[in-house]
């Protein structure tokens, strides 16, 4: 198969039914070619490829534009994520119709901190002090590492180094959540015994609802973690997608040229 043919494969892979119908109207030959090529789509392409030694299969390396596009998008995501909340909890109680909200960032906790601290003193939970969470200082490091991982993934593409770097982006948010869960456990298990309300030690959930006295706290990952997750997804699936689109565009152009040539 020629290079152009390979691109055609990629393009037709993405063509939806409507487009197929259009192609059919334009040229029967084209449709036949497409059908043949569709049948061979999963077959290895020996023209331009890298060999993935771990899997033992022959896999095509993604094109450089595809990798760079995905890498840049992922990097933008990660940079944006740096200033976004890492973890969010929303508290509901009858006398707070609008609810209370806490948002943990890499350098502060925002929202109704004062009010939550005021309420927490009734159950003997110590007021939140940011300097009691030293690992928060690692947030910029985690972000820089994420950017480094993106760079590695972009350069290495497929291959174990690339995979490892992408894995970091998937696992970093999980690690952060686990750390928040540990801190929540810590706050919930060091209650002042002299407090007005004597509660058994408890563990507020890092994700999901926790009921304490008249409050229900709904916790969830912040947008930062979601965006980093998204960056991981872009890095993992983006190159393939971009290659498909590029191939489709080129294929469509060539099909068009051919159609013009034939009609001429």
């Amino acid at each position: 198969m020629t290079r152009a043919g390979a691109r055609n494969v990629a393009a037709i892979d993405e063509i939806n039914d409507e487009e197929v119908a259009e192609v059919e109207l334009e040229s029967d030959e084209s449709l036949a070619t497409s059908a043949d090529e569709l049948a061979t789509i999963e077959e290895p392409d020996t023209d331009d490829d890298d060999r993935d030694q771990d899997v033992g299969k022959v896999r095509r390396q993604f094109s450089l534009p595809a990798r760079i596009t995905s890498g840049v998008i992922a990097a933008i995501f990660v940079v944006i994520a740096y200033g976004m909340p890492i973890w969010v909890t929303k508290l509901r109680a009858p006398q707070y119709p609008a609810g209370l909200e806490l948002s943990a960032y890499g350098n502060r906790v925002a929202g109704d901190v004062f009010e939550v601290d005021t309420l927490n003193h009734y159950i003997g939970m110590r007021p939140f002090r940011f300097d009691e969470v030293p690992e928060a200082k690692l947030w910029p490091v985690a972000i820089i590492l994420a950017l480094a991982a993106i760079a590695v993934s972009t350069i290495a593409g497929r291959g174990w180094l690339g995979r490892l770097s992408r894995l970091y982006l998937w696992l970093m948010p999980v690690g952060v959540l686990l750390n928040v869960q540990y801190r929540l456990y810590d706050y919930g298990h060091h209650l002042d015994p002299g407090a007005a309300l004597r509660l058994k030690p408890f563990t507020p959930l890092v994700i999901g609802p926790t009921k304490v006295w008249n409050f229900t706290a709904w916790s969830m990952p912040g947008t930062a973690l979601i965006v980093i997750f998204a960056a991981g997804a872009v890095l993992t699936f983006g190159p393939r997608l971009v290659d498909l689109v590029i191939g489709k565009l080129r294929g469509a152009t060539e099909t068009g040229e051919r159609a013009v040539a034939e009609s001429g």
Partner: protein
Amino acid sequence: MASDETSKEVVDNDTEEEEAKAKPTAKPPAAKGNGNGSSGTSDGTKWLVIVVALVVGVVLGVLGARLGGSAASAGRLSDVASERGLTGDQAEAALETFVAPGKYDDYFLFASGGHSGQIHVIGVPSMRLLKTLPVFTSEAWSGYGFGSDLSEKVLQEGSNPEKSNQLGWGDAHHPALSEKNGDYDGRFIYINDRANGRLGMVDLRDWKAKQIIDIPNSQTSHGGVFVTPNTEYAHISSMTPRPNTPSGYADLNEYKDKFRGVSSFVKINQESGKGEWDKSFQIELPPYTQDLADAGKKVSHGYAFINSYNTEMATGGNMEGKPPLEVGAIQNDFDFMHVINWEKAAQVVEQGKFENVNGARMIRLDTAIKEGLLHFVPEPRNPHGVDVSPDGSYITVSGKLDPHTSVYSMDKIKKAIENKTYDGTDQFGVPILKLDEVREAYVELGAGPLHTQYDADGNAYTSLFVESAIAKWTLGPNAGVSGDKAWKLVDKIPVQYNIGHLVTPEGDTVSPDGKYVVALNKWSIDRYPDVGTLHPQNFQLIDTTGSKMKLLADMPIGFGEPHYVQIIKRDKIKDALRVYSPGTDPLTMQASSVATKPGQERVERNGKDVDVYMVAMRSNFKPDVVRVKKGDHVRLHVTNIETAQDATHGFAIPGYDKQVSLDPGEVITVEFDANRAGTFGFYCTEFCSALHLEMQGWLLVEP
């Protein structure tokens, strides 16, 4: 399961809400029908509305039942009406005025509290009392006048020791919301003290009184408050003329020579809303009794109108061989409406044509006459209300003893002033315009007309005190009413009883809303069960949308005697705070210099002066033990560091007559001489939290 019950309740609530929404949508066709049809068909139409409402009820009821609730059904609605003995009209009125729990009224009604010295805030159409705002009189719940620096300053500065004792009350008569282009802008509200001639101001950011100005050269006040169309000035005029002698004393036989009235234009600072006396001015007036007043707008912009009576200058003296005032003051056929060109007056002041009299820049009467600032218009004797129409072209004056109302044309007044078509002058030299040249209409309304308000459709509503009724009548061409329809009485509704003022929503602005009129009745007689010998006043909400006015609701006013009131759309008050930003001094609305943050609590002693920087939060004061010595001068600066709305604390010291409210974020200083030894348990007066009862501390005053 509890959760099941909860979900059921939710379903019920939703269904009721839908019904509440559905009813008003069923209403407008009926209102329209009433407007077009004769009164004979209106009953039928009302019943049609009820039937429609019931059908909607059935539909929603079935829906509600399907959703698993016990929603009201058609049968249930009519059952409720019959069980409660309600007629169709009454059931409909209930639906028109009902505001569901947790929902808000469309309008705020600001009612003067009369000699309670307060302003009462009432929701319309529910007619529920929302809040009382103290202005001239102490009020302990909000801590006004019981030791808070804000209220002490306002009350003390509002009392001129050269004129009066420290004043502890006032007679709040006529509120005036601030305006922009002749329409309410919802920022500030002003009110006069009838008893002591003072001007009070309430800031509608935190709804607290921020200033009382004692007006020099005047003792009492009835004219105003009105504000000029862009709140350049708040106007207040004297009622009883006051001797212009240094001591404030003159014998009554020197009435004509030494007594004078005064019209005061108080310059308003647009940021703080406060009056700035050094930029204000006064106009000296003859010793008639200046009564109600109103500002011109649009066509009459730049003018002010003040009624007067007792142009006879009677003084009473019924044990001294003179007739009582009620006889002496009604001898003349005509009294004089004062037409004041305040814009020109402000220029005259800028030109330096004033005298400094007791701290006031006063334009003397002869200057006012010479400069053409003051003209008189004859008005039937013993007038009361003077009310400018929305377009500013008509000025309605009603006389208590004349069953007619007189409507003056601003165009004609201007022309008469320009052409000097005078009917001579009064005995002080003030030119009198010819009545026939300036009066546009003379409409017979009924017995004892007093005050007039307007709607958006060219109608005027006038209270008939003697007749206990409201007259609805039409204005003329400038208000869009022409031909035979102009200047006609179109409807009348009896009210219970003895109506004073009345009010329509935004009815004294350039764009009234119509829809309702509220009768402010002086007597309630039999409208309420016996609650002692001092009866409540009676507010009545009346629907004006139909061809016949219809009574919707009574509201007992058992907390003051309102005079004038104003109604403003709720959403026009845009800057209202739900909570102060932390550390606010309510007097300045800025960060307080004595605000205390957690960790900064301290006691500073400087000789006999003790400053305590205290913090209040759920559920303690810090410090909670304060030690001083007898003879110390103590300043307790208390900061409520709460940020949650409604997390209010109080601070009360027994034995020292101190009680202040500390709203969230507010800083209040309580200042006193520790002149009484003892150990006093101060405490939080507002039930703030589960441990509220523990929120107390000790003030130790060592002998």
